């Protein structure tokens, strides 16, 4: 393993966001010092790691000064005041170049923040830069992309898993306090797993996508080094945005405030073993997953076998909808800007050209059916249902393995994650071990009922308390 176990206090850049924010509020740490620490690390490591496409050095320092001044004046600040966040470069940021890692948008400077970015800023967070991704969050990355693909800080011989690859690399490599990305089929949970992070996709609509491109099943989501950090990020990100027809009009609970109060002993955790065992899981993935289940039992959970129908069909349906939506978005541009798209991306985008309205609606109907099955049969509060489902995050450990064209084109790398995009369920990858053969982390995934985001975080937190994975960091 290339990483280091941390028996003493972590260095500043690896401290949990929650602790960094506490010290800033208490006047024990200046935001400027924290931002400068991260900028120094970005300067030192980004040329090799490619985590960021754009870094907003001046903007971040100015924002940090503003936070420090407010605290010095005794003003009340937000829960994320002064902590630097990296945002996936598909999420628009006012006045800061947003490229989607595409030559097509290499000079695009948005006039508005996406609502998620605005909410982070309102909570006091500082956007330090824009993180790398697969072009348009789709396809397979290539050296010919606007920015070359990022490397995994745990072992830079391996590429970072995407599509929120740079967000995973930046959060795990100590190049930001936390990051945000998007998850349309696993693009937060998959990099979460392979970078040793909490990658949490919230319930559909809990975090609005207002201000960025429409996508029915892709959620803006945090990547963090601890569960408490994920809860703090979700507190800031969640909320109703009336302009967004997909935004959930309910009132989010306090995720961080209620994180530690649950007694999870006795919670029934379902494992769809027939489904899990039918995947081409690498042996070290199976080993880590079994260890994960043992840890859940150690905190008092009951592990039960739960047959779940339709997960494969839901995965297929999710990718059909994604294909249709991405093609619709790019159809006109592909005709006139073909040469400005990446060679792999433009071919992936064309898949949707062959789909009919009937195909799209069939897929949506299958997705609704599986969503209903999960709610009424699996997470049922009336029948003896389960509180959460547990599965590996991915059958594969390395990005290289997960991108093999035959399996990638069928979405096998996302066989565990993608079903819960079209069904809308909250789902998170949590650290559950390491691969000795590669030195890369391995994640396992928990999924709960719609709008049980708090239960998901509470279970992940309870699990985190009996492991030390979150205290280990890459040796960079």
């Amino acid at each position, binding site marked *: 393993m290339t990483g280091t176990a941390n028996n003493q206090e972590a260095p500043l850049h690896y401290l949990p966001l929650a602790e960094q924010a506490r010290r800033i509020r208490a006047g024990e740490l200046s935001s400027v010092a924290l931002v400068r620490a991260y900028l120094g690390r970005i300067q030192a490591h980004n040329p090799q790691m490619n985590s960021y496409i754009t870094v907003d050095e001046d903007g971040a320092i100015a924002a940090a000064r503003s936070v420090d001044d407010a605290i010095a004046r005794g003003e009340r600040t937000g829960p994320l005041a002064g902590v630097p966040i990296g945002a996936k470069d598909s999420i628009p940021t006012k006045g800061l170049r947003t490229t989607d890692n595409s030559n097509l948008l290499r000079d695009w400077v948005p006039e508005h923040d996406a609502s998620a970015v605005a909410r982070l800023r309102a909570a006091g967070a500082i956007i330090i830069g824009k993180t790398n991704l697969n072009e348009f969050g789709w396809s397979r990355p290539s050296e010919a992309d606007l920015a070359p693909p990022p490397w995994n800080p745990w072992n830079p011989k391996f590429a970072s898993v995407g599509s929120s690859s740079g967000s995973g690399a930046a959060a795990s490599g100590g190049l930001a306090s936390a990051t945000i990305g998007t998850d349309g089929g696993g693009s937060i949970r998959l990099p979460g797993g392979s970078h040793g992070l909490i990658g949490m996709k919230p319930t559909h609509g809990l975090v609005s996508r207002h201000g960025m491109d429409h996508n029915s099943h892709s959620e803006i989501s945090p990547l963090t080094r601890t569960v408490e950090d994920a809860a703090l990020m979700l507190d800031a990100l969640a909320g109703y945005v009336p302009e967004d027809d997909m935004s959930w009009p309910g009132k989010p609970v306090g995720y961080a405030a209620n994180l530690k109060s649950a007694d999870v002993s006795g919670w029934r955790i379902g494992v769809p073993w027939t489904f899990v065992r*039918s995947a081409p899981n690498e042996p070290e993935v199976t080993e880590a997953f079994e260890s994960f289940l043992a840890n859940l039992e150690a905190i008092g959970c009951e592990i039960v076998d739960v047959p779940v*129908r339709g997960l*494969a*069909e839901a995965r297929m349906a999710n990718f059909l909808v994604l294909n249709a939506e991405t093609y619709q978005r790019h159809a006109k541009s592909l005709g006139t800007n*073909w040469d400005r798209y990446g*060679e792999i991306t433009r071919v992936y985008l064309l898949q949707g050209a062959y789909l009919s309205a009937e195909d799209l609606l069939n*897929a949506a109907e*299958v997705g609704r059916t599986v969503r209903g099955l999960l709610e009424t049969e699996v997470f049922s509060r009336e029948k003896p249902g389960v509180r959460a489902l547990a599965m590996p995050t991915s059958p594969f450990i390395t990005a290289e393995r997960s991108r093999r064209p035959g399996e990638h084109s069928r979405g096998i790398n996302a066989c565990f994650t993608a079903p819960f995009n079209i069904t809308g369920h909250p789902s998170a990858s949590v650290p559950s071990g390491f691969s000795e053969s590669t030195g890369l982390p391995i994640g396992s995934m928990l999924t709960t009922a719609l709008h049980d985001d708090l239960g998901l975080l509470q279970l992940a937190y309870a699990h985190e308390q009996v492991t030390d994975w979150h205290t280990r960091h890459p040796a960079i």
Partner: protein
Amino acid sequence: MENPGTPADILRRMGKVVPITESDAAQLHQLLQGVHAATETMAKLAPVFPGEVDASSLSLTVDAEEAKP
């Protein structure tokens, strides 16, 4: 979704929309095999009006094959 046909068919059809090459068409052909199979699966599941998707016909495995619980 209609069967996309051969790479040559794809080149002919998409060539009217974008300057696709033979190499692009070959890659797209491979991707469309998976897309076509997925649409066929969805079409089989689509109910006859006024029915609903038969949940018992949904699979239990990653490859959408039947399996006994």
